[in-house]
C-alpha cells in the first residue's frame, strides 16, 4: 500500500479551478518530484496536504486512514510536514538555533512551563543528531545562511516524526555547493524510509534527486515519469507545447564598449578586475551566493559603491550616487527578489500591473504631475502583448499574477524606456520554464542596449547569455565561453 493516496482532489477559488481532480500516490522511501508551470495547481495541492486549505472534493488516504487536516498542526501530528520556500519565517532574529529547533515544542501543550538553557541545548542537540545535521546551536537565527535555515526547518520537521516531507523550492536561495549538501541529506533520509514530495522549477535539481516525477497542468496530474526521467518530455507536458531550443545565437560584440569597469574592487581587500560590455551583448555573471554579484550590480546602479576603481558609460565617467542618477545616465536595474525590490503590497496604490511598469517613468510620462491621459495604460497593453503576460488587463492587481508573469512585468518596467545598460539580478527566481523561455527571448530580442545578468544558476546563464563571467570572492575570476568552463570556474 502506498503511504499517501490522493483521489480526484479538487479545489476552486471563485471561478478559477486550481485543482480539478488530481490523483496520485506516494510510497514510503521515495523522492517524488512535483513539476508544473505557475498556476498548474502545485501550491494548492501542497496547501491542502499541509492543512492550510480544505479541499472541495476528493479523498486523501494517509497510511490507509482518511486524512483531511484542518490546520498545519493537525497535518504535522499526522506526519505530514511542509518546509516552505521562504525560510525567514522558520525562526526569528534573536532566537538561537536551539530555540528555533524547539519552537514548535514550546508551543505544545503539556510541556513544562519553565525551561533551562541546558535543557534546551540537550533537546536541540538530540534533534540535530537524529537528523544527522551539524549546526551551531548558539548561533543567532538571523546570522544563519539560507541553506542552514533550510536545514533547521527540515530538522524540526523530522523531530515531529514526519513520514511525508514536503519541500517547496528548497534550493531557490541555495548555492550549488549548498544544494549538493541538501541533496545528500535528502537521499539519506529517503533511504531511512521517509517519503519526500519535492517541488521545484529547476530540472537540474530534479535530475539529481527525483526517483519519480509527476507533472501537473491545469489542476490535474498530466504526466508521470519514472527514472531515468525524460525531462524534455516532462517539460513539454508541463508547458503544453514543444520546447524550442532557447540556445542563443551568439553575437560577437565589436567596437567600443558601452560600459567599462577598470581596476574595480567591490571590497577594499578584494582583487581588482576589469569588465567591458558592448551594445547588443547579453553578458551573464554567475557565482555562488554571496560571491558579490548583487554588490557589483548595485554599484553600477548607484545603490552601492565601489571600494576602488572607475566605471565608464559610453566613454564618460560613471559615478552614480543614487539609482536616480544611474537611471538618468541610461542604466536600468531589475533587482533580485521582485517582492522586496520592485512590487507594491496588495491593495495598495500602485499595485496594479500598469502602475508597476510606470513607477520609474512617472516624471517622464506625466510631466504636468496629474495622472491623466492613460499613458501607463497604453504602455501596459503594449507590454502585455509583447511579453505575452497572462493577466486580465493593465489594471490587474500584480499579486494576482503568477511568479513568471510578475517577473515579465518587472522586465517590462525597465524596457518601457530605452536604456544603454540593463542590469538583471536573478531574473529567473521563481519563474517556470515556459515564462523563462519568454523572458529569455525578450531579453535577447533587444540589440539596442547591453544586458548584464547575475544568476547563481550556470544553466540559466548559459541559456541566456552570449558571454559568461564567473565571480568569486568579490572579483571576476575568468571570462568563459562555454558551460564547461563555467562549471570549472565555479568549482575551482
Amino acid at each position, binding site marked *: 500500500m502506498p503511504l499517501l493516496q490522493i483521489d480526484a482532489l479538487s479545489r476552486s*477559488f*471563485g*471561478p*478559477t479551478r*486550481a485543482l480539478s481532480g488530481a490523483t496520485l500516490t506516494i510510497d514510503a522511501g521515495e523522492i517524488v518530484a512535483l513539476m508544473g508551470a*505557475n*498556476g*498548474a*495547481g*502545485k*501550491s*494548492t495541492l501542497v*496547501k491542502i496536504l499541509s492543512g*492550510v*486549505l480544505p479541499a472541495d472534493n476528493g479523498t486523501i488516504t494517509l497510511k490507509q486512514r482518511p486524512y483531511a487536516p484542518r490546520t498545519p498542526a493537525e497535518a504535522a501530528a499526522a506526519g505530514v510536514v511542509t518546509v516552505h520556500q521562504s525560510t525567514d519565517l522558520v525562526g526569528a532574529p534573536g532566537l538561537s538555533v536551539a530555540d528555533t529547533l524547539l519552537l514548535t515544542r514550546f508551543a505544545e501543550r503539556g510541556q513544562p512551563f519553565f525551561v533551562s538553557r541546558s535543557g534546551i541545548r540537550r533537546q536541540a542537540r538530540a534533534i540535530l543528531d537524529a537528523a544527522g545535521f551539524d549546526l551551531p546551536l548558539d548561533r543567532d537565527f538571523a546570522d544563519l545562511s539560507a541553506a542552514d535555515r533550510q536545514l533547521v526547518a527540515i530538522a524540526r520537521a523530522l523531530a515531529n516524526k514526519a513520514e511525508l516531507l514536503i519541500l517547496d523550492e528548497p534550493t531557490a536561495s541555495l548555492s550549488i555547493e549548498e544544494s549538493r549538501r541538501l541533496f545528500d541529506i535528502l537521499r539519506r533520509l529517503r533511504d531511512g524510509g521517509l517519503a519526500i514530495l519535492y517541488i521545484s522549477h529547476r530540472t537540474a535539481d530534479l535530475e539529481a534527486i527525483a526517483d519519480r516525477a509527476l507533472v501537473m497542468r491545469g489542476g490535474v496530474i498530466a504526466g508521470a515519469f519514472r527514472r531515468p526521467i525524460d525531462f524534455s518530455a516532462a517539460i513539454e507536458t508541463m508547458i503544453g507545447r514543444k520546447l524550442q531550443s532557447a540556445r542563443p545565437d551568439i553575437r560577437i560584440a565589436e567596437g567600443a564598449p558601452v560600459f567599462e569597469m577598470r581596476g574595480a574592487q567591490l571590497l577594499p581587500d578584494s582583487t581588482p578586475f576589469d569588465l567591458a560590455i558592448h551594445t547588443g551583448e547579453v553578458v551573464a555573471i554567475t557565482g555562488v551566493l554571496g560571491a558579490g554579484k548583487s554588490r557589483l550590480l548595485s554599484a553600477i*546602479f548607484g*545603490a552601492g559603491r565601489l571600494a576602488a576603481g572607475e566605471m565608464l558609460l559610453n566613454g564618460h565617467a560613471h559615478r552614480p550616487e*543614487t*539609482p*536616480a542618477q*544611474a*537611471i*538618468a545616465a541610461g542604466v536600468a*536595474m531589475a*533587482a533580485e527578489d521582485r*517582492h*522586496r*525590490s*520592485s*512590487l*507594491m*503590497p*496588495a*491593495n*495598495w*496604490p*500602485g*499595485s496594479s500591473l500598469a*502602475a508597476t511598469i510606470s*513607477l*520609474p517613468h*512617472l*516624471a517622464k510620462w*506625466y510631466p504636468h*504631475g*496629474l*495622472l*491623466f491621459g492613460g499613458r501607463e495604460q497604453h504602455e501596459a497593453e503594449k507590454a502585455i502583448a509583447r511579453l505575452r503576460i497572462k493577466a*486580465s488587463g493593465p489594471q490587474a*492587481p500584480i*499579486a*494576482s499574477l*503568477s*511568479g513568471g508573469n510578475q517577473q515579465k512585468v518587472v522586465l517590462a*518596467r525597465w524596457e518601457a524606456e530605452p536604456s544603454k545598460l540593463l542590469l538583471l539580478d536573478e531574473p529567473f527566481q*521563481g519563474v517556470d520554464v515556459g515564462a523563462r523561455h519568454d523572458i529569455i527571448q525578450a531579453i535577447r530580442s533587444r540589440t539596442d542596449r547591453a544586458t548584464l545578468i547575475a544568476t547563481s544558476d550556470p544553466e540559466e546563464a548559459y541559456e541566456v547569455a552570449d558571454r559568461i563571467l564567473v565571480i568569486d570572492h568579490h572579483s571576476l575570476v575568468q571570462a568563459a565561453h562555454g558551460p564547461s568552463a563555467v562549471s570549472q570556474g565555479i568549482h575551482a
Partner: protein
Amino acid sequence: MTSINDESLSPPARGDTTKGETIHWLAGFSAALRSGAVFILLAALLLGFTAAEPAFANIGNLMSILQAVAVVAILGAGVTVTLAVGGFDLSIGAVAASSVMAASYAMIVWGLDAFAAVPLVLAFGALVGLVNALLIVRLKVPDLLATLSMMFLLSGLQLIPTAGRSISAGLILPDGTTATGAYDPAFLLIGRASLFGVVPVSVVLMTIVAVVLFVLTERTRIGRLLFATGGNEVATRLAGASTARLKVLAYVISGTLASLGGIVIAARVGRGDVSSGGSLLMDAVAAALIGFAVLGKRRPNVLGAIVGAVFVGVLLNGLTMLNAPYYTQDFVKGAVLVGALALTYGLGRNNSC
C-alpha cells in the same frame, strides 16, 4: 508581509461578479456593503437623529457639526499623508496647540496683524515638519519615536514665552511689562465668519484642504510616489525616486496643516489657551484610521479621513442633542474606532486564502 501566492489565483478583486452564480453575486453584494458601510451608517445616523430630534437636520446645526470637526478633519488629512509614506505624525496635536499660542503671541505681544501672523504660524508648522523629517530621514529615528518626542518638546516649549500663562489682551509678560497688542479682527474672521452667512470659513478651509490633498494623493504622480514610499521603500528608491524627499514633503504637509488647524482654533477662541488642543491628536488619528474603512480601501486615504471626522462629529452632535452626557464622548469615539478597525481588518478580509 503581503500574501502573494503564485498559484492560488485570488478571486477577482473589485467585486466583479460572474453572471448567474448566486454565490458570486452575494460575494459582490457583501463587498459593496462593506465598502459602503460607513456611508450607510452615516445616512442611518442622520435619519435616526432627525427622526428623534427634527432640529438636528436644520442647516445651522449641520454647519455647526462641520465647523466642530473642521480642525480634526484638517489634521486627520495631514496624518493620512504621513501614513501614506509609511510614517506616523504624533506631533500634530502639539503643533496645533503651540500654533494657537504662536498666533496669539504674534498678535498680542508683537502686535502683528493677521496677514503677518498667519504666514508666520504656517511657517512654524512647516518648520516643525521639517525637523521631524530631519530626525526621521537623516538621523534614522523611527517615525513614532521622533514625532512623539517632538510632541513632548512642543507642549513644553509653548509654555516658556509666557511663563505658563494663557495669552489674552493685556497679558503681563515674564519681565513685568504688559502686552499692548490685540487679536486682529481680520484674524478672528477665520474662526467666526461665514461665507454667505451660511458656510463657516473653517468649513471652507476644510473643504479646500480635502480637495487639494485628495487630488495630490490620489491623482498625481507625487501622490503615487508618496504611497509607493509607504508601500515598498526599497522598490521606490530603486525606481529612482528620492524617498527622503518624499518623506520630508509628507511631514512638512502634516506640520503645516496642523498649524492651520491651530490658526482656526485660535481664531475661534480668540485667546491663546495653554490647554487648547488636548484631544486633537487622538481625534485626528481616529479620523484617519476610521478612514481606512471608508470605501473598503483598507489603507490611508484623505477622503476617508474627512468622512471619519464627519462621522464622529455627527454621532457626537446627535447624542448631545439627545442629552447624552459629555463624559460619554470619548467612549463613543473609541467604540467607533474599534468598530471601524474591525470592519477594515477583520470583516474586510477575503477568507479565500
